[in-house]
């Protein structure tokens, strides 16, 4: 009893460490692949680590009008992301924290982080912060119903919203070629693009443009506050990539006894593979599409919502027959 508790805690700690270590790498590899696809040399894949270190060492500058919200937000957002990352299976399915919250809890955590980020954007009172916060709220208010619908579709397919249970259901092979799952996957991918501010919705590589969303919101942050916010953003990308991987391609993840080292190693390898594939897919998608106007995002996310609703409807049809 105590042994399993210790093993579970160790596994959870290892999971968090791996997540924190892998998040900058994922972003770095994505940027690297993207610049190579655009025939640029691009920064080395470990550049995000250097960025974070440099930001940590730099002085933090606060505006005179900054209230406690502005100062607390980086820590809040980062810790919310860490908690959410602790719940998503990455290389092992049975995390102790995973039983604490399901897909809906993760959505709620991300929404809370987004809420505080928007508040902080408004707090300073600059024009860019306001623009960013309002656009982020627009995107969030459209992305959340879509991702909740995806959760409902998955719940109808697998009978639960708990992530390890859904992954196990997919692993059991009882799914086959399922329309609902395919539609839910596309909807989740669209939501992931929007949530992470990747290219058709927001350009993560731009500063000081009128079209930016996330960068506009965090424009006033500097030093370690900025480092925390950027780290949270990297974790968010990692969360979505591993969420998609764990829900739709959980093969090879460590699913059995918690301290089976061989299985853990295999799970880690598969996890790395997932990250590489995720980075490659994001890079290819981003170089082949242009950024949308902000008000087109409504339709883009509306399409995600519609796909998720269709997934639920198809499941309903299949259940009824």
């Amino acid at each position, binding site marked *: 009893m105590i042994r399993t508790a210790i093993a579970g805690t160790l596994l959870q700690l290892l999971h968090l460490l791996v997540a924190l270590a892998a998040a900058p790498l994922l972003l770095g590899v994505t940027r690297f692949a993207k610049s190579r696809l655009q025939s640029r040399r691009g920064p080395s894949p470990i550049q995000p680590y250097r960025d974070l270190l440099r930001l940590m060492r730099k002085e933090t500058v606060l505006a005179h009008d900054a209230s406690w919200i502005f100062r607390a937000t980086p820590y809040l957002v980062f810790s919310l992301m860490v908690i959410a990352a602790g719940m998503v299976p990455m290389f092992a399915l049975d995390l102790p924290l995973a039983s604490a919250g399901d897909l809906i809890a993760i959505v709620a955590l991300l929404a809370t982080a987004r809420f505080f980020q928007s508040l902080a954007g408004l707090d300073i009172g600059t024009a860019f912060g306001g623009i960013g916060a309002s656009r982020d709220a627009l995107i969030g208010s459209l992305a959340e119903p879509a991702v909740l619908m995806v959760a409902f579709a998955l719940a109808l397919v697998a009978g639960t919203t708990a992530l390890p249970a859904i992954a196990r259901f997919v692993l059991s092979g009882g799914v*086959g070629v*399922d329309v609902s799952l395919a*539609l839910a996957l596309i909807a989740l991918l669209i939501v992931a693009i929007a949530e992470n501010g990747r290219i058709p919705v927001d350009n993560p590589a731009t500063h000081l443009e009128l079209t930016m969303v996330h960068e506009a919101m965090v424009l006033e942050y500097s030093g370690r506050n900025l480092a925390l916010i950027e780290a949270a953003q990297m974790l968010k990308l990692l969360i979505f990539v591993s969420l998609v991987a764990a829900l739709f391609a959980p093969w090879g993840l460590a699913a059995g006894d918690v301290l089976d080292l061989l299985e853990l190693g295999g799970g880690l390898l598969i996890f790395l593979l997932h990250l590489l594939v995720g980075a490659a897919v994001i890079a290819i998608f981003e170089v082949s599409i242009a950024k949308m106007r902000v008000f087109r995002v409504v*339709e883009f996310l*509306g399409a995600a919502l519609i*796909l998720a609703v269709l997934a639920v409807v*198809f499941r309903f*049809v*299949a259940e009824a*027959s």
Partner: protein
Amino acid sequence: MFATIAYDLSHMAGAMVLLAGFVVLYQRRVLGVLRAFAAQSIAVAGAAAWQAYSQEAPHLYVTAAIALLLKGIAAPIALNRIVRRLDIHRTVETAVGIGATMLAGVGLVVLATLLVLPVTVSSAALTRETLAIALSVVLIGFLMMITRRNAITQVVGFMSLENGLVLAAVGVKGMPLVVEMSVAFSLLIAFILFGMFFFRIRERFDTLDLQSIESFRGERR
């Protein structure tokens, strides 16, 4: 095992057709509408071919070929040429906004599902699902015709409606008339295409003689 795969694949093909219907609704450009419609017709051809294989009904291959050649390739190319030749409205003119149309589309899918499921309690699962999906495609075709002002997009709506009919026809076992039906419909479509072509030209030349104006200004396309 084979039965479940056959079931899953035909379900998937039907869903693809319906999804392509939504893609048609989503497009803002006339050329995008045509491409999405071609994708839908190819999906219908795939569904028909799969049904022909799994039901061992060779005549459905003919239906698949007609759908692929006529509606997947010929009609989009012809409409494409008309659009380019006449240089007519590249943007889709909508009577209702695109987002509202998509929502209405989802409503129609729910309506079709609710309508078909109680009526067909006694039939096999595959038939019921195919009928529900096909009815949704038909209704979305209607929606397309109602909410788009441009004649070309209306014809696309009509043809995607016909895709839904073909989907319904191939999903039901033992329907030999389907070949004749689809040929007849295709002829009708061709008739409409040419009618619209002539109509457009006549309208262009009667109301606003662009070509003579252009030659007068010395422009050449």
